């Protein structure tokens, strides 16, 4: 396994508010990493910096040895919390869009997943339910053969059956040599798939390590560790 992400002394401020403070991490390829923390801890800020939506106030970030830019955007597959597909499009339009801009997009995989969900590619995005829109977005993201997948709260606000579907889709469709970073505060559901864990609070790194090592060292599950670390 090689180093995929290098984060050195990363800070991000919004005016006087510090969202990330001197964060330093090295993340390897081929891992499923849980980015855990309470609301407002800096998880989304870190993910947005990694996918190029925010620039750091200070510090340095590289992905696969490259500065954040168009080259890293080509190898990063990002699932935001929001629905981003333009409402005027049909499902097949967004498939065409992804196929045009991402060389690693596997259209056959996407179409297969859509057909299993019984979503017709001719359907207009604005007629889909909220849950189905989120599933279409997830399918688009996981149908890419990317080096880094950034999933921001993929299971928040969905029913338990949908959560299982989302987690199964993640596990069965990603490139095993790639890294997945899943940001969430719903630990119980994703603990089973995590290799590594990052816990941050108020922009500071609190815990970082292998999930198995943390469980044996602390003698508790990651969910229990989370509750202890972030006890109010």
């Amino acid at each position, binding site marked *: 396994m090689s180093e995929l992400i290098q984060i050195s002394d990363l800070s991000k401020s919004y005016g006087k508010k510090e969202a990330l403070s001197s964060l330093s991490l090295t993340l390897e390829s081929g891992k499923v990493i849980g980015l855990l923390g309470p609301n407002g801890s800096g998880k989304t800020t870190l993910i*947005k910096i990694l*996918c*190029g*939506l*925010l*620039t750091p106030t200070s510090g340095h970030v590289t992905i696969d040895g490259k500065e954040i830019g*168009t*080259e890293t*955007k*080509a190898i*990063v597959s*990002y699932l*935001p919390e*929001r*629905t*981003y*597909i*333009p409402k*005027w499009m049909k499902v097949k*339009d967004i498939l065409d*869009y992804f196929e*045009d*801009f*991402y060389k690693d997009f596997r259209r056959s995989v996407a179409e297969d997943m859509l057909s299993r969900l019984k979503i017709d590619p001719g359907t207009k995005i604005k007629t889909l339910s909220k849950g189905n829109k989120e599933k279409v977005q997830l399918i688009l993201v996981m149908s890419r053969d990317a080096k880094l997948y950034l999933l921001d709260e993929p299971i928040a606000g969905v029913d338990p059956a949908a959560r299982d579907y989302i987690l199964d889709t993640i596990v069965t469709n990603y490139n095993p040599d790639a890294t997945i970073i899943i940001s969430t505060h719903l630990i119980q559901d994703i603990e089973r798939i995590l290799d590594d864990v990052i816990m941050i609070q108020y922009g500071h790194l609190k815990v970082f390590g292998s999930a198995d090592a943390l469980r044996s060292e602390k003698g508790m599950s990651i969910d229990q560790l989370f509750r202890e670390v972030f006890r109010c």
Partner: protein
Amino acid sequence: MLGKLLKHEMIYLIKTFSPLYIVYLILAGVIRLLSLFENQFEDLDTSSSGAITLIVFAGIIGVAYGILTGILALLTMIDNVRRFKNNMFTDEGYLTNTLPVTATEHIAAKLLAGIINYLASVVVILAGLFIASGEEAPSMAKGIWEAITSDSIPLSQKLIGLLLGFMIYVSIQLLGYLLSALGNMVNSCKGLLSFGLGFFSVIFVMIMSARITAFTTSQSLSGEQTILCICAFLLVCCICMYLLIVNIIKKHLNLQ
């Protein structure tokens, strides 16, 4: 990547504006049909409900056609800025800004698509006018052609006039993009900020254009040279606006 961006812009424009252009041409056709029966209207008994309905219908069609003729080209410009704002600074920005595409390519694609759609709207308006005017269409076409090819206005002046028109169009579009980008940076009073900055920008350009004209007149420069100076000033404004927009997209994106 610019080609692909432009392709998807054109797909959006065809899906969005084709129905509007078709409706406009149909309205022109209806105007033409109504004008064919103009003589019969004079013999109508205007107290009958059928006649009133027909007159009201003709009036509505005429008003709709007139309004669309006046604003069709303007609508393309407004939609272009609206689309830039939605693509870059709303939820769609999570898709657009994570594409492996530079900010310059995004701006260029939107601008090029806007120019193509603007020219298409002008062609549709002319086609509508030809359809509505019917038998007078050939003489209208001849008149427009003679105005374009006339020797009374030198070719250089026509080209400079086109250049000025192009620079004004690009300046207005880029100003719209810049105001959207600046609005993205604040969390409240976006509309007020955009309106205020837009208003003062227009005033600034008008004052500078007047000063340039006064200067060139004092230096005994020709009208063509004055317009070229104004075009150069607009070019500098466009470059400044472009650099600001790119800087905001790269470093100050504020997607909620």
